[in-house]
C-alpha cells in the first residue's frame, strides 16, 4: 500500500465525519477536507485566527508551490506522495487520558526505563491524569504528583522567562500578539520559494515555536527543559522561528528521546534562526520518530528545512542533531555566515537501522569576512539502511579569510548497509581555507570480541563502541540530554548484530 494511502486509511478510522460542504460550514469542523487547495490554506489560516497579511503570505506560498516539482536528488527512495490524498489540518487529537501509570503499554514503559526517564515525566509524556477525587492509590499518587508538578514547573518557567523579557510561545499566538516581529523575520531565512517542502510548509504550517530574546539577554534557562514538559503535539508541518537580538544567547532543544508515533506520515518542518550582532543560538535536536517496522513499512517521512542566518557581526549559530528515527530523513541544517567574524557549527549523529534512509548534512555559506565554520558528522548505518552525508561549503567572493573544518566519519555495522559521503566545496575567494577529512570504517569483530570477553553482551558492546564513535558530538548536547541520547543510540541499534 502506498505510504500516503496507509496514513489516510488510519485517519479515516479515527475520523467521525467527512466534510463535503463549502468553506463556511467547514470552519466549525476540526479537520480540513482532504487535499490541498486555496480553500485548505484559507481554512487553516481561519482556524488560527490569523490576520489577513498572514493568509496572503500563505496563499502566495501555495501558488508558488503549484509551480514547483518535488526534488529527486537525495539518495532516498519512497513511493510517490499524492499530495491531494493528505489531510492538511486536524486539530490535535486529545490523547486518551490514562488514570494510572499501569495503563501505559508495557513495551513503551520498557523503552522509557531503558532511557532512564523518570517515572514522573513518563506520566506527563504519556498523558496520565489525576483521578477526579477519591483516595489515590500508590500508583496514582505518582501520576498526581507528576501532573501537578508539571503545571507548577511550567508556570515557574513562564514567570522567569517573562522577567527576562524573553518571548516564548506558539508561533500561532506570536502571529497575533507580536505581528511586527513575525512580519520582520518570518521567511527571511528560508524564503517561501526556497524549496518544494519549505514552500509547502509555508502554505500549510500548523504550529511551532516562536522565540525572541531581547538585546543583551542571556536566556535564563535551556528552553529544552520547558519544552520537554509542554510541547508534544507540534503536528506534521511545524514552523519555528527563533530570533536572538544583539548580544543575546539562547539554547533550544527540539524533540525528545522518548519514542514518538504520529498518524501523519509526511512531515515537512521549517526552522528559521536569526542571530544579530554578537548573538548566539544553540539549537539541538533529538529526533526519534517512528522508523517503520522491520519490513520497512510505515514510518515517518521527514523532509525538514532548517537554516540559521548569522546576520550580525560576531554572531554564532550552532546546530547539534541526534537523528535516530524516521523512515526517511531529508535534512540539512545550514548556516548563512553573513556577518563578519560570524561562526557556524554543525554537529551531527545520524543513525540508520533496518530499512531507514538518511540523507542529511549541512550547508555553510561564507559571505562575510573572517567567517568560520566547523562540521562534525558521524553517520552510523546498520541493517539494510542507507546513510548519506551531503554537505556544501562555499566562500563568497567577498568572504576573505573564510575557514572551514569538516570531519565526516561513517561507521558500518554489518555488510548490508551503506554509507555515502557527498561533500561539495566551492571557494570564490582565494584566501579561504577549507579542510575536509572523511573516514569510513566497519565495526571490528576484534573490538566486539574484546568487549564481550570482558563481560559485555554483543549489544552492549555495539552500544559502547558506537557511543565512543559519536562522543565528540554527544558532548555538544545539553547535559541532561546527553545521557539519554547515549542510551537512545544503544536502543536504536538493538537487533543490529548477531
Amino acid at each position, binding site marked *: 500500500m502506498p505510504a500516503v494511502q496507509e496514513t489516510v486509511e488510519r485517519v479515516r478510522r479515527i475520523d467521525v465525519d467527512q466534510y463535503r460542504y463549502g468553506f463556511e460550514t467547514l470552519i466549525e469542523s476540526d479537520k480540513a477536507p482532504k487535499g490541498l487547495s486555496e480553500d485548505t490554506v484559507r481554512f487553516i489560516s481561519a482556524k488560527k485566527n490569523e490576520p489577513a497579511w498572514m493568509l496572503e503570505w500563505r496563499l502566495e506560498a501555495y501558488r508558488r508551490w503549484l509551480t514547483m516539482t518535488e526534488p529527486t536528488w537525495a539518495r532516498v527512495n519512497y513511493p510517490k506522495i499524492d499530495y491531494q490524498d493528505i489531510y492538511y489540518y486536524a486539530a490535535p487529537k486529545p490523547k486518551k487520558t490514562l488514570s494510572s501509570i499501569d495503563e501505559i503499554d508495557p513495551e513503551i514503559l520498557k523503552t522509557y526505563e531503558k532511557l532512564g526517564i523518570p517515572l514522573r515525566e513518563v506520566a506527563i509524556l504519556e498523558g496520565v491524569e489525576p483521578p477526579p477525587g477519591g483516595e489515590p492509590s500508590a500508583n496514582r499518587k505518582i501520576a498526581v504528583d507528576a501532573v501537578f508538578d508539571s503545571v507548577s514547573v511550567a508556570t515557574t518557567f513562564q514567570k522567569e522567562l517573562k522577567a527576562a523579557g524573553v518571548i516564548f510561545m506558539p508561533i500561532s499566538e506570536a502571529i497575533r500578539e507580536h505581528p511586527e516581529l513575525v512580519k520582520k523575520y518570518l521567511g527571511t531565512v528560508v524564503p517561501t520559494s526556497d524549496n518544494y517542502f519549505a514552500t509547502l510548509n509555508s502554505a500549510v504550517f500548523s504550529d511551532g515555536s516562536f522565540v525572541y530574546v531581547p538585546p543583551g539577554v542571556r536566556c535564563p534557562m535551556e528552553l529544552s527543559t520547558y519544552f520537554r514538559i509542554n510541547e508534544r503535539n507540534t503536528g506534521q508541518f511545524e514552523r519555528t522561528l527563533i530570533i536572538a537580538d544583539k548580544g543575546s544567547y539562547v539554547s533550544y532543544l527540539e524533540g525528545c528521546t522518548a519514542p514518538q508515533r504520529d498518524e501523519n506520515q509526511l512531515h515537512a518542518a521549517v526552522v528559521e534562526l536569526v542571530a544579530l550582532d554578537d548573538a548566539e543560538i544553540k539549537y539541538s535536536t533529538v529526533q526519534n520518530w517512528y522508523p517503520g517496522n522491520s519490513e520497512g513499512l510505515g514510518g515517518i517521512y521527514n523532509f525538514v528545512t532548517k537554516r540559521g542566518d548569522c546576520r550580525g557581526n560576531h554572531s554564532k549559530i550552532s546546530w547539534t542533531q541526534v537523528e535516530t528515527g524516521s523512515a526517511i530523513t531529508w535534512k540539512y541544517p545550514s548556516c548563512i555566515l553573513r556577518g563578519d567574524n560570524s561562526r557556524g557549527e554543525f554537529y551531527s549523529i545520524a543513525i540508520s537501522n533496518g530499512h531507514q534512509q538518511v540523507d542529511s548534512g549541512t550547508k555553510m555559506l561564507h559571505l562575510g569576512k573572517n567567517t568560520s565554520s566547523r562540521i562534525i558528522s558521524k553517520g552510523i548505518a546498520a541493517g539494510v539502511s542507507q546513510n548519506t552525508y551531503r554537505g556544501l561549503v562555499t566562500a563568497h567572493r567577498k568572504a576573505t579569510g573564510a575557514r572551514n573544518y569538516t570531519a565526516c566519519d561513517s561507521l558500518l555495522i554489518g555488510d548490508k548497509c551503506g554509507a555515502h559521503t557527498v561533500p561539495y566545496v566551492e571557494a570564490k575567494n582565494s584566501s579561504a581555507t577549507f579542510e575536509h577529512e572523511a573516514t569510513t570504517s566497519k565495526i571490528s569483530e576484534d573490538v566486539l570480541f574484546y*568487549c564481550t*570477553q570482558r*563481560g559485555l553482551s554483543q549489544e552492549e558492546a555495539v552500544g559502547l563502541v558506537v557511543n*565512543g564513535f559519536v562522543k565528540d558530538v554527544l558532548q555538544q548536547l545539553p547535559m541532561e540530554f546527553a545521557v539519554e541520547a547515549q542510551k537512545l543510540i544503544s536502543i536504536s541499534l538493538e537487533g543490529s548484530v548477531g
Partner: protein
Amino acid sequence: MSLLEVKDLKVRVEDNEILHGLTLTVNPGEVHAIMGPNGSGKSTLSHVIAGKPGYEVTDGQILFKGEDLLEMEPDERAAKGVFLAFQYPVEIPGVATMNFLRTALNAQRKERGESEFSTPDFLKKVREVAKSLNIPQDMLKRGVNVGFSGGEKKRNEILQMALFEPAVCILDEMDSGLDIDALRIAADGVNALRSPDRAMVVITHYQRLLNYIVPDFVHVMSKGRVVKSGGKDLALELEASGYTQFEDAA
C-alpha cells in the same frame, strides 16, 4: 573437579584445521605455561576457550568447572570467570578506560546476579590496583588503549584481570613488548593474583617470564597439538635446544 578441561579439541578456521586434537587439564591453584613456535596454535586455543567467533570446533570438548564452555556466549564465559589477556589488545576510541572498566565489571556482576559496585567502592578498587601496576590515573581517563604504548596496553590487561578476579586467567604473550622493569611489575601483578582457587595459563616464547611467574607445568605445542608436557625445567631445556626436536613428534 578440574577447573578447565580441554579434551581432544579439533578446531578449523575457514578450511584449515588448526588444532588437531588438543588436550589440557588445569586444576585450581596451578600455573601452566604453554610454549611453542610461531603459528603452532597457541592464540587459537586461547580464542576458542574465550569464545571468539569464527572458529569451528569440529571435535572435542571444553569444560569449565564441569560445564560445557562451548555452549556459552563469550560474555557468559567472562562472567563465569574466564579471562583472556590479549596478545594484541584493541583500541576503543572515545570510550574512557575508567568507564569501560566499570561497565564491564558491572555487566559481569549483573550476569552473576550480584549487585553493582558503588562508585566510591569501584574508584577505590581501581586506584589501588592501578597504583600497584604503576598505571597513572591520567591513563584511565583516556580512550581504552588509545595511544597506549605496547607496554601500557599489556599493563591495562593485567589491571582488568586484577579487577575482575577471574577463576582462569589466560595470558597470551603478556611479556612481548615489555621492558625489563615493566615485565617485573606486570609479573608481580600476576603473582599477586595467584591463589589456591585460581589458575593461570601463561603463553610465552621466553623462559625469562617464567623466572618471574614460576609455572607448575610447562607444555610444548607444535602444529596444533601438545607434544610434550613437563615441569618448569622443560622451559629451560627448550631455551637451550629450541623446538626442532619436537617437529617430528607433531
